[in-house]
């Protein structure tokens, strides 16, 4: 059973209010979660008034504008800014998404930005994903074959078999899905979570892989797999439009029929 309340050191306090200094008429209030490890204080939510006339269309543009023009200490991860790397995954307006492809024009009223849910915060909008990476490693996300590497022939895959990986290989491991899952919040140390299970299915489903049975056996676990109760927050939040819930359902079905 999980703890539904935030621990005392995580209770969010009211932060600073940065008033607009540009006299713009097109303002948006942006509430951002802040936590500075050197301050020794509880996390807080700062409110920034941002001039939207001189701001780009995406949430990441807003964050950059705040960092460049209002508060340079604002910390967040980003890299490609095109929805390919998955670095800027965060909770925007209550749903996990990538800041670089989420349009702020889709959001009415104030904009709320928090780190990915139920993670140890490193600083501001950066959550610690090391548990998820360890779990990812545990499913051995690479081809298992009998080949030694000295064969003269490559491992071939028919077009049809390759198509079976569509909707799964596109995953960028941004962790939007896993950190949206209540089941993962309460059992994140044991339950693998949607992102890792989708990856597990991707390798189980790969026609070139020689370890299908072993992979299935390893994932068939009350806690690792069956903590999925088809809540579908994962599919609802995936910024790439993938369907982790379906992948998990497929693994369950494979186990039930094998």
């Amino acid at each position, binding site marked *: 059973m999980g703890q*539904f309340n*935030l*621990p005392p*050191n*995580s209770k*969010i306090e009211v932060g600073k209010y940065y008033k607009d200094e540009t006299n713009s008429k097109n303002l948006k209030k942006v509430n951002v*979660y802040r*936590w500075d*490890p050197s301050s020794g204080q*509880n*996390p807080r939510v700062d409110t920034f008034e941002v001039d939207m006339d001189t701001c780009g269309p995406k949430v990441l543009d807003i964050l950059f504008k705040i960092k460049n023009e209002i508060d340079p200490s604002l910390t967040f991860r980003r890299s490609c800014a095109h929805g390919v790397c998955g670095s800027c995954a965060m*909770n925007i*307006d*209550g*749903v996990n998404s990538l800041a670089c492809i989420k349009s702020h024009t889709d959001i009415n009223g104030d904009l*709320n930005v*928090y*780190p*990915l*849910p*139920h*993670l*140890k*915060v*490193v600083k501001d909008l950066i*959550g*610690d994903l*090391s548990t998820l990476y360890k779990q990812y490693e545990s499913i051995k996300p690479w081809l298992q074959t009998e080949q030694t590497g000295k064969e003269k022939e490559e491992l071939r895959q028919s077009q049809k078999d390759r198509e079976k990986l569509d909707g799964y290989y596109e995953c960028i491991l941004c962790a939007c899905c896993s950190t*949206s899952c*209540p089941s993962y*919040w309460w059992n994140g140390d044991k339950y693998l979570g949607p992102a890792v299970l989708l990856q597990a299915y991707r390798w189980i489903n790969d026609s070139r892989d020689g370890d299908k049975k072993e992979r299935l056996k390893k994932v068939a676990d009350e806690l690792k797999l069956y903590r999925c*109760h*088809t*809540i*579908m*927050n994962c*599919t*609802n939040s995936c910024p790439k439009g993938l*369907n982790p*819930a*379906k992948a998990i*359902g*497929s693994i*369950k*079905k494979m186990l*039930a029929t094998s």
Partner: protein
Amino acid sequence: MEEKNNPLSPHLQIYKWQISSLLSITHRIVGVINIFAFTIICFWTLSLLLGAESYQIINNFFKSFFGKFVVVGLCWTFSFHILNELRHLTWDLGYGFDLKVSKVTGVLALIGSFVLTILFYLIGKNFF
């Protein structure tokens, strides 16, 4: 992360409810209620064996306003649980994971549960 002092990012407090997550938690709560409901129904049946007097006590309870509320409420919890369980069964068969489809089936299950409740109530009243 070695430092234990790092705060936990907010989760339930900030995450927006989706139709799917709302129905999922309702399914759970309703399931627990149904277990208690079965107990009540068992006691009701048992009271038949213990004679008219004990039967009357429970019957009186069901006739009271609160009793009627409980009965109609249970009609709904059973209806909802049955319909939503049908969704779970189709998921187990590998269908209905599509985001749009799951939303539609979810809403249908919710509307259907109210329709069934009214039907149960009318059948109970010998309306047909």
